[in-house]
């Protein structure tokens, strides 16, 4: 079934659109972001292309350090500089290229049309400003909401994210909140201007399983209500399975596989995806089988191996893998993979 895909790659000179670009809310093309450390450059994002449809939830998975967060932050140019730099690529949001915008234009997009929820709820809120001050800020900046309406709007937001007794909490400071509640405040802040795209970078990693479920359910409901798109970054495949429409699997700064949740889970085509799924201990496993880890260590992004970045750990590696970096190309329909081998063989 996959022979055709491997032996007859599509014309590569033509970028293969993931979704119809006209339809896509966000279209990322060939994004490269590096971090410079002295004379060393870490290619944290190394040629990433993908798109997010309207109302779609895109998940980005991959192990720690694979470049998920940097990809997300590059979209809004939130890469700290120095040492980071976006050296190439285009990010079209609704047809406008975010990477070519002036600072002022960019500011009007940030927090307004695209909002972001960061990985660390404990530290992403300013400890010396009250929740009210922080919550109202995006509205003041972007929406010119009248002062008298701001309080009502803030309360409304807190209610939406199900913070009990919002009136009492509005003037509290972040340290008076638990981790879960802080993350909810972050979400409320992100939602303040009803963004069209929400980027949630591991919104629950730092939280307990029970709180994680609450937050994710909440996000799912809210995006559905507003019809916004969402990029959900995580390395928890379980979360992805439940919430994502589409999945991008990243490894060493590149997307190695992309497809719908079902495609990825039921028919993974990249050896890394395969390994990832196999190494998860599963509650629903029939018996306590021995786990099948991916052997070896993740690559050093400052000095990545030649060819396919995964080849040193890949059980299927063949000589070609050591020399040539496989392009991301369709395997079947919108299911893309970047691998020279056919894992079924």
């Amino acid at each position, binding site marked *: 079934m996959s022979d055709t895909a491997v032996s007859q790659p599509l014309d590569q000179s033509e970028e293969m659109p993931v979704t119809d670009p006209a339809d896509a809310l966000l279209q990322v093309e060939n994004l490269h972001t590096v971090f410079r450390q002295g004379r060393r450059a870490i290619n944290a994002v190394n040629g990433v292309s993908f798109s997010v449809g309207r109302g779609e939830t895109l998940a980005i998975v991959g192990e720690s350090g694979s470049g998920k967060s940097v990809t997300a932050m590059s979209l809004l140019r939130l890469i700290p500089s120095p040492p980071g730099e976006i050296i190439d690529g285009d990010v079209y949001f609704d047809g406008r290229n975010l990477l070519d915008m002036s600072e002022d234009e960019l500011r009007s997009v940030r927090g307004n049309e695209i909002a972001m929820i960061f990985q660390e709820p404990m530290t992403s809120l300013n400890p010396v400003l009250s929740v009210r001050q922080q919550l109202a800020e995006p509205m003041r900046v972007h929406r010119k909401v009248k002062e008298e309406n701001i309080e009502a709007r803030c309360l409304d937001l807190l209610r939406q994210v199900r913070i009990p007794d919002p009136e009492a909490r509005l003037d509290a400071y972040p340290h008076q909140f638990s981790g879960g509640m802080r993350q909810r405040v972050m979400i409320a802040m992100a939602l303040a201007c009803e963004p069209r795209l929400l980027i949630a970078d591991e919104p629950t990693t730092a939280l*307990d399983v*029970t709180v994680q*479920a609450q937050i994710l359910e909440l996000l799912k409901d809210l995006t559905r209500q507003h019809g916004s798109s969402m990029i959900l970054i995580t390395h928890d495949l379980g979360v992805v399975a439940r919430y994502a429409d589409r999945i991008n699997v990243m490894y060493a700064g590149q997307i190695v596989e992309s497809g719908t949740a079902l495609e990825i889970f039921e028919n993974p085509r990249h050896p890394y995806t395969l390994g*990832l799924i196999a190494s998860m201990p599963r*509650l629903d496993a029939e018996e306590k089988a021995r*786990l*099948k*880890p991916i052997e070896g260590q993740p690559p050093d992004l400052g000095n990545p191996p030649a060819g396919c970045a995964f080849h040193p750990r890949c059980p299927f590696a063949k000589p070609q893998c050591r020399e040539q970096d496989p392009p991301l190309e369709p395997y079947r329909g919108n299911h893309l993979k970047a691998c020279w081998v056919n894992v079924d063989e």
Partner: protein
Amino acid sequence: MSDTPLLEVRNLKVHFPLPGTLLKPKSGGSVKAVDGVSFHLNRGETLGLVGESGCGKSTTGMAVLRMTPVTAGEIHLEGNNITDLKGRSLRTLRRKMQMIYQDPFGALDPRMRVLDIIGEPLKVHNLVSGRKAYRAEVMRLMELVGLLPGMAERYPHEFSGGQRQRIGIARALAARPEVIICDEPVSALDVSIQAQIINLLKDLQEELGLTYLFVAHDLAVVRHICDRVMVMYLGHVVEVADSEELYTNPQHPYTQALLSAIPIPDPRAESRREVDPSIEGEVPSPVNPPSGCPFHPRCKHAMETCRTVAPELKDTTQGHAVSCHLYEPTSAAMPQIRVASMA
């Protein structure tokens, strides 16, 4: 195994007094991190200890190691009461119990070479004599956990998380302990590395006949490695059972909620799974735990008695104990809740 378990803990309590002030040196309040925990650990088995963050898992582990002052209760190792050991005898005891830590980055002294980190217990307890023997022993340990001998001269920061965790394991093994307390040894690791470490721990157990107290909050991981599982909530044990039994037949509403909250990496299963609403709300503070059953404010089955009377941990079936009024003979009916995917 034999009748006396390797380790037995009876009614363990660990309370941390809240810091006093100048005018009120003893504020009276305390964090009841562990509040009456009893369990036993048989030789060669792995006991899982799960529960939400802050429920007292680590503190239980520390108390067993005698690293934290015990407020009440007794700890017996191989039938000997070790609760009150002090000084030299305590230090000797520590040889028998070792610990593997959650944070592979913080658990290794950044200024020591791997050789010295792994070998430190050997030096502390004078287990080998001579540099040659020392080195050979460290090499053996490194090989055991899958580290290359060439790495002995390097410093921890030159290693990845998984490798560091291996160093930590090698160090724990150095003193040839009987019990190893694993405090969330894989939580900080990536799934792909996590699997490596879990396999390693299992292999070592088979090879060396180790006994693990395995603290974690990831129930899927626990299921993979543990023979029995103990669920804690707010300093109390709410349920203990054999691993398979617990996962297929969770009885305490908290266990059920916990299990239902775990997403499963399978889109088809996930689309069918319902999230248990009883997990709404926040974990109460261990300074002012709720009266009666600590879980009652978040429990959808909460009854009047739950608010006032603290339930006791009682066997419902052989080897399956639960601490919930629902399972007491007086209660009206056994709840028929099941985790969807388990059905």
